């Protein structure tokens, strides 16, 4: 699994870049920058995890990409468009964003209205809106909830509505800003499932801020922010073998990795597993 991740990573790096940052800095107060001189490139179709301790500026960094916050310095290019005053509209069409709190991103009074909010802003024809409404609510399994109020939905359902609202606008890049952190375990697994399917479709570049080990492990590449700069750009496997970095980013190893390590300490040799299932299969073939 990790090998295939690497392969995908290699393939992806041959794809054209959709996000390029060069020398980007940001600070509310110019004397106290939150981060400085960040340069990176994300290729089309990649699934990238952005990790780091709370308050290190992960959310701020992704908000610079579609100008929700104004960068202090540097250059940002999204889908070949230089980020500036004139291009903000087109860049926002290319980037969809799912936020942490499922309640606060629910704009409409019902599920249908919430999905339509973005589509009406794109000035689509009613026939096209109806079509997308059907396709994306089916895809996320919320077609039966169309006339529900946010108060009648669970956290996981609300987050699926948020994702449907974003995907219906058909952006090439989807950013998840700790989208699973307020969800329970079951809804979290559902979200991971949705992400896997999005990757399989191959249409989306995914940038995901997360603290969840399973989510990081599922991605192609990890970017770690630490001390106002980019501390690492590596594969998830490399991240989880680097104790120092895990410590800096306040991250925990996936459970299967921890277990494998403990087993190795007592002399039971297991390779590093990609998942719990793989570990079980290795131990009891």
């Amino acid at each position, binding site marked *: 699994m990790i090998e295939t991740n690497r392969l995908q990573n290699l393939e992806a790096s041959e794809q054209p870049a959709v996000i390029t940052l060069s020398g980007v800095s940001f600070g509310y107060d110019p004397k106290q920058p939150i981060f400085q001189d960040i340069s990176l490139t994300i290729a089309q179709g990649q699934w990238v995890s952005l990790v780091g301790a709370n308050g290190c500026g992960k959310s701020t960094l992704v908000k610079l990409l579609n100008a929700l916050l104004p960068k202090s310095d540097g250059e940002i290019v999204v889908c070949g468009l230089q980020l500036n005053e004139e291009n903000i509209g087109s860049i926002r069409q290319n980037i*969809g964003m799912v936020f942490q*709190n499922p309640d606060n991103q629910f704009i409409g009074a019902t599920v249908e209205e919430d999905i339509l*909010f973005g589509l009406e*802003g794109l000035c689509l024809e009613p026939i096209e809106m109806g079509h997308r409404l059907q396709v994306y609510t089916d895809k996320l399994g919320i077609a039966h909830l169309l006339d529900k109020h946010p*108060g009648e939905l669970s956290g996981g359902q609300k987050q699926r509505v948020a994702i449907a609202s974003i995907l219906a606008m058909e952006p090439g890049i989807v950013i998840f800003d700790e989208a699973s952190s307020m969800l329970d375990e079951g809804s979290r697994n559902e979200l991971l499932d949705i992400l896997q399917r999005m990757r399989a479709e191959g249409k989306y570049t995914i940038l995901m801020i997360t603290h969840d080990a399973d989510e990081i492990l599922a991605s192609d590449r990890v970017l770690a922010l630490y001390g106002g700069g980019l501390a690492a750009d590596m594969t998830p496997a490399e991240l989880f073998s680097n104790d120092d970095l895990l410590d800096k980013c306040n991250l925990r190893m996936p459970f299967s990795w921890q277990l494998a390590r403990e087993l190795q300490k007592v002399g039971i040799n297991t390779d590093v597993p990609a998942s719990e299932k793989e570990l079980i299969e290795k131990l009891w073939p």
Partner: protein
Amino acid sequence: MSSEKLLLGRTIETGSWVHKLDARGKIIGMLLYVAVILLSHSWPAMALLAVFSISVMASTRIPLKYFVKAAKPLRYLMLFIFIVQVLSIKEGEVWLTLGSLSLHQDGLRLGAFSVIRMLFLVSFTALLTFTTTPGKLNQGLEGILSPLKKIGMSPDRLTLMIGIALRFIPTILDESQIIMKAQASRGADLAELPLKEKARMLVSLLVPVISSAFRRAQDLVYSMEARGFRMDAPRTRYHRLRWGLADTVFICMFVVMGLAVAIL
């Protein structure tokens, strides 16, 4: 959940002909209904009003008890108005005298009229929110206010504001409940305090509720902007308002009623 207790603004879907009417027609109809009520001054007019109102309410196929429930919170106000009317109007035949107080026929009649009017006003206009989703209602309001664009005002801003307010009222109410419980769990129970202390405690409830509302607002702005929202930018509509024959009939019904009660 507290939001479920709020009957106001809850749509009850039955698919009746009233549900299918244009929201603009329904809003205009309700305004005309207020005029009809104010024009009703006699027992025959009241009777006609009752027959008309109840048959329209019944035609929505929503159980009548919901309409009664909508008026229920105002029962004490109605009683108060009745008593004031009865005691203050000293005209017509005297029916009963108790010391300095006397009960006059006209007082009783006008008191009863006030109560009937209020009852029908509140329960009948609930029909608007029962049969129209907030979104459609808002769109109807935007349609009615659209002439304001000519004098440089922007009705879409107003309706966006109303839409977001309606969307967040239940959320913020729920949150106030949670904060109240959190405070009660630390020994500051609002329910057990004397009135003066209650007022003081209310401040300590309002501060966290308002500050969290601001935080929500910031999140909401991010979410709206990320979905490409710009104020006054052109938008298309998925649901278009369509004025049909039924809407004209609906309006005409109220005009005819107005004429009828004015004559009676």
